[in-house]
């Protein structure tokens, strides 16, 4: 009974930490540019696809995927920002959101056309015996996914809080004109934000590839999970995104185990609905207390 609950929780945390990574990328872009990138899920899908290419197709070593793909997808994201979003700098939110929605579709379709299969399987990273801690089995994979994603996420937060990059993005988000007057280039900051967001999405893709395989559906699954996690956490809070992702993963896992698989799909929407209606600032909003 308790062991089963433990298994369910570990599975939830495993998915949840990937959602957290996806949400983190979404929030980083939103923090800097004030828009939600609906193509984010497609970036994660491209990351998973690139994992397939590297691990299965070209048979490179697995660790190269973790190294190369974030850089690659980050570069793709930055390029698309330059080509598609930069000309829309003066357009309103509606236009930008529409552009990213269709950008995501175009990327997903491009993938579907190059590899016209339902699902590409990617082998797992570890095959060894699971650990046995306090009556609960933890597979090596789950341990790696959870620690790996959370370590990346924490590193990201540190960079964003203390690095020069983070300062520029926060400045941009709170006042575009003011930040520009202080010498931050809007083009550079936006591009950097998309690079970081893309890199995080790509990394989420690498982590999820062996668990869920690569398919077109991955694109929409990741964007909804990431968005819901972001909303739960409070869309401007990096730690909130991580906590929101973990919460969502655990909730989905519990619903699937104890209610039904249909409920697993509904739970994220229920959470989104509840949070948006009753606590639109999120459960873990960033403290922006003003000292008066």
């Amino acid at each position, binding site marked *: 009974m308790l062991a089963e609950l433990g298994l369910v929780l570990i599975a939830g945390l495993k998915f949840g930490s990937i959602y957290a990574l996806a949400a983190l990328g979404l929030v980083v872009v939103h923090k800097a540019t004030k*828009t*939600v990138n609906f193509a984010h899920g497609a970036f994660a899908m491209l990351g998973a696809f690139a994992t397939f290419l590297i691990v299965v197709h070209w048979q490179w070593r697995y660790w190269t995927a973790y190294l190369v793909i974030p850089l690659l997808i980050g570069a793709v994201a930055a390029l698309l920002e330059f080509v598609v979003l930069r000309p829309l700098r003066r357009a309103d939110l*509606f236009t930008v959101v529409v552009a990213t*929605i*269709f950008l995501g579709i175009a990327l997903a379709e491009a993938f579907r056309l190059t590899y016209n299969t339902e699902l590409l399987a990617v082998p797992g990273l570890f095959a060894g015996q699971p650990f046995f801690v306090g009556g609960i089995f933890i597979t090596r994979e789950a341990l790696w996914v959870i620690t790996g994603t959370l370590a990346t996420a924490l590193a990201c937060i540190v960079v964003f809080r203390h690095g020069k990059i983070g300062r520029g993005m926060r400045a941009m988000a709170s006042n575009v004109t003011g930040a520009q007057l202080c010498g931050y280039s809007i083009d550079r900051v936006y591009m950097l934000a998309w690079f970081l967001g893309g890199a995080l999405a790509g990394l989420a893709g690498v982590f999820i590839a062996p668990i869920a395989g690569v398919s077109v559906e991955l694109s929409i699954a990741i964007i909804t999970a990431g*968005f819901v996690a972001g909303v739960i956490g409070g869309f401007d809070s990096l730690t909130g995104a991580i906590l929101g992702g973990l919460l969502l993963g655990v909730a989905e896992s519990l619903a699937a185990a104890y209610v039904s698989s249909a409920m697993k*799909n509904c739970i994220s*929407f229920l959470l989104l609905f509840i949070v*948006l209606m009753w606590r639109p600032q999120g459960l873990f909003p960033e403290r922006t207390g003003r000292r008066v």
Partner: protein
Amino acid sequence: MSEKGFRAATSAPAIFVLVCIGAGSVLGSYPQYALAMSLVAMVIGVALIVLVGLARCISLASGSIMAIGAYTSTLLMVHFDVQYAVSIALAMVAGAAAGWLIALPGTRFRGHNLAMVTLVFQSVCIILLREAKTITGGAEGIHVPAVGIFGWRIDTDGDFLLVIGLVSALIILCLTVLIRGPFGKNLQAVASNEVAAEAYGIGIPDYLAAAFVISSIAIALAGALAAPRIRILDPDSFGVLSSIFMLAYPIVGGMHSVWGGILGGGGLRSLPEVLRPVADYQELFFASLVILVVMFFPGGLVELVRRTSALVVRGRGQRDRKSAAAAYPPDVMIFAAPHAQSSEPLLCVEGVDKHFGALHAVDAASLEVPIGGIHGLIGPNGAGKTSLFNIISGFLAADAGKIAFAGDSLLKLRPRDRIRFGITRTFQHVAVFGQLSCLDNVVIGLGRNQVLNSMRESLDRFLSGRRTAVMRRQALAALAAVGLADDADLTAATLSLGNQRLLEIARAMVSEPKLILLDEPASGISEQEGEHLLKLLLRINSERNIAMLVIEHNIPFIAKLCRTMSVMGAGRIVAQGRPADVISLPVVRRLYFGEEIEHALQR
């Protein structure tokens, strides 16, 4: 445009659909099928003009709404033996209910949050359809039975084209009447400036909910019409992707006109028939097309057609087009004799308090505006003037205090209700409805903008146009009064800042209010325009007996304009009286120039 011309232009899309049926009758069976499905897509396109084009709501739920229509109609026929015609009507009811359900949370969100809320609805619907296997047939789908109307069995593609075409023409006519009438104009006003819309009695949640409900009715109808042609309904053919491609209809076609929905829906739906050899690349092509349109051609196909035809018939249009001023000669305004300023108070603000956290923005402020009087409100930046204004016009709730207007308390009224009491306002940052013409801006200022009212007036405009003519004449008179009669047909966004301020004043005075609140009317305009504005305001005040409460930084301007004034500093009213007396008070000088300069001046 004359009333006859308006009626013709409004009927044109529906007539176009009828022409399509006529042309289709000579075609073969497959083209008839394709044409019928394109007509269904046109209905969806026009429905999304209301929601996406005018209200600028991103909806990703269209697929599920279409599914609701198709499934409602089919399930009623399968399980309850309901007549096809009746099942279509009930499908529209189900569509309305679904639209209202989305609007419940939907009207609270904009932009990406709204897109996500609609995506939630979409996904939950599809999951429910898939899980309720015993009723809907689950993922394998359900067979749509043969249909007929009043004993006539609808069988061939030609029959379907006729039925689908006639119903489509009817619903497109209804939608066009709404889109081109005051309802559509008010929706655009909401999309272009929510605060100003609210101030002129446009209830934003009501309008957005109406947009969701109306477009959902039409999309559900489209689903019910298409169901017998789809033959086997399964949840996945109404999935997220279908919603996203429907979103493309108004964007590719052109967002602001009915023809955008017709061209976008018809064009994108029939494109796959043309692109059959490269069918695989269809979705990629669609998505790229939308991105290109958004980036380089925001006006869509409609704009493309307009520009091409303008090139062809250059110069001719100029002569043919009659300006609004010519079509509706303005009423000659007859004003009562100038009123002497009464001493009876019209607006009475007493002890109003407002805190923002630790900041005491308004501190026990009291002032009075007499009937027909002009009262000025000055004070340094951050003194709480605009906060007090927002409390009087209802955009902020006061923590304490009383506001009486002609004897009634104002505190409980929403901003949009205050216009009916005779209070209108202008804004510190000009808030005209940029996409609408100047004339339409001023017509909105007449008030009477409740949803049902504007729908009724849309219908009136199409049927007789009598009420519209009256309203337009009033609006033109107001435009003429501020000197903008010649610009009546121009889009408001193209005016200069000074003229936009005049337009705001025309919009504020057209309903003949008892009180206008003017927030920095002279800021950002030239000295010459300022002189003109001063004379204009004084004339409006004396000829129409409209009282004014004016915030202004331009001291000479306000000193000439108002008869009494209040000075605010740090939330408190520090002085009140006649302009000349108030300005020379030491306390006022200190507020503006600071303590030390004051000493220097005295020395």
